[in-house]
């Protein structure tokens, strides 16, 4: 109470002095022309701002120093333990006591608060997180890491950060939870799903995809991604779906989600994810989109690629029909899809793709597809090479050079496709 009254007293005093001097200044400048009044006001405002920024710089510098001090202390105390936990020596499963011994924690302290306050917890988890993501240790035993974090009370701390603090803290804490694959209470996720911050909502949603049962994925049945959709969403979704698949849960019907979106970008995202997660059984649900959205060339390209990757041969007649009427970029995607089917039906279409255009890029891609179209295609390719005009010779040279031979497979994504599994396994 006393502090409040002192504060009030000084506050009133400052206001009183401020008002007095302001009136005094107004009195002094009352007879001056407006430009002088403006100039003096701007000058005073700038000086005040300079002083405020000077103090802010000092404050920031002191704050950083304090953080560094705690960081150095914890680094000295637990740094070696952290390194050990991410090394090859910590591959075997360890008990809480063993981990405590590595970190020099007394037996009596187990189960109690080892780190004194939130700042220490924040610094500890930050130090460990930075080590974890920079080293990308293949040796780290996930269960040991979870035990270690529980030993230091980190999961409870992160959950508190997620549910109580500012957006920045929420996002950071949520990212750490996801990186360390810590379990989160469903009520926390539900609370975040209704957050006013889009980013927090999405992070919660990704966690939900990993953890929830099949019936809990209804929020995709809205136009949520129509408003905002970026490459990062796709990366996060791929990651979450991958985790879900590895946990043995059923993957949702992504074609249905693609159909529900209105925005071309989000439609493309779900179609791409379909091929990354081998959803051949739902490919037929894209037919309607393919037939009706013919002016959305990116979408047509993505559907063509997806059908090609997943060998949805029922789509081949549609692709052949679309080949000659679509723009050049889309033509290339369709030709690649036809090549992946390699049923023999699309070879004539590829040949037409080669002859009916003057665009060198499309001609080259058509040749590339024929080259990769099994024996039938290779025969056709050799025929064309034999009869090639001088100006087309450079295309064929490309296929005969040992350095560029690596480039003549189908487009780059082919290599990415199976690696979704391996990358996220690490």
């Amino acid at each position, binding site marked *: 109470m006393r502090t409040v009254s002192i504060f009030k007293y000084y506050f009133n005093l400052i206001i009183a002095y401020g008002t007095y001097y302001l009136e005094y200044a107004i009195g002094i400048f009352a007879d001056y*022309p407006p*430009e*002088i009044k*403006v*100039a*003096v006001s*701007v*000058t005073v405002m*700038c*000086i005040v*701002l*300079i002083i405020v*920024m*000077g103090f*802010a*710089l000092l404050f*920031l*510098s002191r704050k950083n120093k304090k953080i560094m001090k705690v960081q150095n202390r914890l680094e000295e105390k637990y740094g070696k333990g952290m390194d050990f936990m991410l090394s090859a020596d910590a591959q075997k499963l360890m008990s809480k006591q063993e981990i405590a011994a590595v970190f020099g924690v007394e037996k009596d302290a187990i189960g109690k608060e080892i780190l004194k306050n939130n700042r220490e917890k924040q610094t500890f988890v930050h130090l460990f997180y*930075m080590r974890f*993501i*920079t080293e*990308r240790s293949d040796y780290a035993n996930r269960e040991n890491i979870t035990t270690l974090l529980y030993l230091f009370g980190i999961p409870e701390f992160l959950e508190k950060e997620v549910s109580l603090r500012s*957006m*920045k803290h929420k*996002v*950071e804490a949520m*990212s750490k939870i996801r*990186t360390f694959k810590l379990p989160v209470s469903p009520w926390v996720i539900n609370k975040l799903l209704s957050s006013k911050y889009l*980013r927090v909502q999405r992070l919660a949603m990704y966690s939900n995809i990993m953890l929830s049962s099949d019936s809990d994925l209804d929020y995709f049945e809205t136009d949520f991604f129509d*408003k*905002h*959709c*970026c*490459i*990062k969403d*796709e*990366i996060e979704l*791929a*990651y979450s779906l991958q985790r879900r698949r590895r946990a043995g849960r059923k993957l949702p019907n992504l074609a249905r989600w693609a159909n529900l979106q209105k925005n071309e*970008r989000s439609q493309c995202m779900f179609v791409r994810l379909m091929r990354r997660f081998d959803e051949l059984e739902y490919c037929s649900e894209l037919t309607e989109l393919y037939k009706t959205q013919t002016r959305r060339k990116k979408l047509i390209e993505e559907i063509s690629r997806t059908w090609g990757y997943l060998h949805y041969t029922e789509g081949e007649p549609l692709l052949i029909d679309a080949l000659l009427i679509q723009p050049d970029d889309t033509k290339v995607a369709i030709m690649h899809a036809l090549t992946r089917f390699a049923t023999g039906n699309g070879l004539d279409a590829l040949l037409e793709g080669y002859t009916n255009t003057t*665009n*060198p*890029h499309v001609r*080259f891609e058509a040749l590339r597809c024929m080259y990769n179209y099994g024996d039938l295609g290779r025969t056709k390719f050799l025929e064309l090479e034999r009869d090639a005009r001088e100006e087309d010779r*450079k*295309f064929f*040279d*490309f296929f005969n*050079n040992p*350095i*560029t031979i690596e480039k003549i497979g189908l487009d*780059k994504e082919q290599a*990415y496709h199976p*690696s*979704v599994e391996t*990358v*996220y396994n*690490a």
Partner: protein
Amino acid sequence: MWVIIYYIFCYLIFGYTMLLMASYMYLVIMSHKAQARLGINIPDDETIKYFLQGSPLTPAVSIIAPAFNEEVTILDNVYSLMQIDYPDYEIIIVNDASTDRTMELLINEFKLVEVPYDIAMRVQSKPIKRVLKSTEEKYSKLVVVDKEHGGKKADGSNAGINVCSNKYFVCTDVDCIIEPMALYRMMWLVVNSHRPMIGVSATMLMSNGCIVEDGRVVEAAVPDTLIPMFQQMEYLRSFLISKLGWSSINALPNISGGFGLFDTDVAVKSGGYDPTSMAEDVDMLLRMVTYMKNTGQEFRLAQVPKICCWTEGPGSVKSIYRQRVRWARGLFEIISNHRKLFFNPHYGPIGAFTLPYIFIFEFIAPILEMTGFFFMVWLILIGGVNWDTAIILFGMIYVFSVFMAFFVLYFDYSAKAVNWHNTRVSYLKLLMVTLLEPFLYHPIITYCSIVGYWRFISNQTAVWKPIQRQGVKKKKS
């Protein structure tokens, strides 16, 4: 009558100054807001790297670096480019028919051989003679393009665009020192954008005074000599306040030719760089914006608030004179060639705000300053100056410029834009140059602008002379 004209002129100039200061304040507020937002959205470098490195969806980038007679530095520079940390990128060095040993050194060092290449001349450039790749796996990222002499960086960049195979390309100078995490910082904005990102501008600073080891800046420092020191402050102000402020309303007017990322497809459809232009980077960006707006597509332009690239700036008055005359001429050319965009809301915030701002406060300012200078001299000669008022007005402008400098430093510190080797010394140096800038540096820049405008109006032939490099401090490893 003359007295009325005199008063009208004086009040117009006063109004102009106040408007200029108000627009600076607006940019300060916008950049502060952008920083606060980015502070939440941009995590630390390690987190970005962890996220992007592990994903097969991370977009690939081509780095295009034109070179002409760079035999002294070319190998160091290529090795420096190879040190960039990013999962999927290619380096395209475009040799603009160098007359020295540039090509020979590249061929010998990287075991280059000629390869057939799928070259579609998507944008205009001088003919490409050959494309070379290394026979060694460790240099597989490197592509060298040998072309006929175009004489302009724009021509070389266009040749690089014709060869590049990725969705995004970065245009840089072969002598720029790129921060190892630069591509991650730029691509983070790309992957986070809800609208297609067509260009990302990177923060660049002077490498003069920095210590470089193995092609990396290991100690960031403010230059020791005055001219680069002034430019350091100018660059900080430009990137951290101006460009960041404009980018927050999607109205970035320029992506520097020194280090900027572009969407290849949009750049190609807009015609690439114009080799005849003196401000090819602004010109291309404005054409990209025009293309996107005319085709009714959404787009985003962004500024990275962290240092991505170091470049050696002009170290002498003579060099800076040449550079700034060229820039002024380029500005006039942009205003003349893209006049339909100015004050035109059809082109979004760039047409409605940024370009009018550039016209009123960047293009006209040197003319007004020069007029004001002669007007002041005349007033002094006839004894018509009210010294009290003059001092108060000058004081306001001076204090405002100090405030801007303070804000830049505050911003730099809080956003950790540059990792200075000795923050206190660097900031003191920068504050010191701010106090001197209105007397020493600004008059030179104003004079250069007037000369540049005159050269454009009088249609004098533009001669591109490279800046005399003094080299950066090197530390032996």
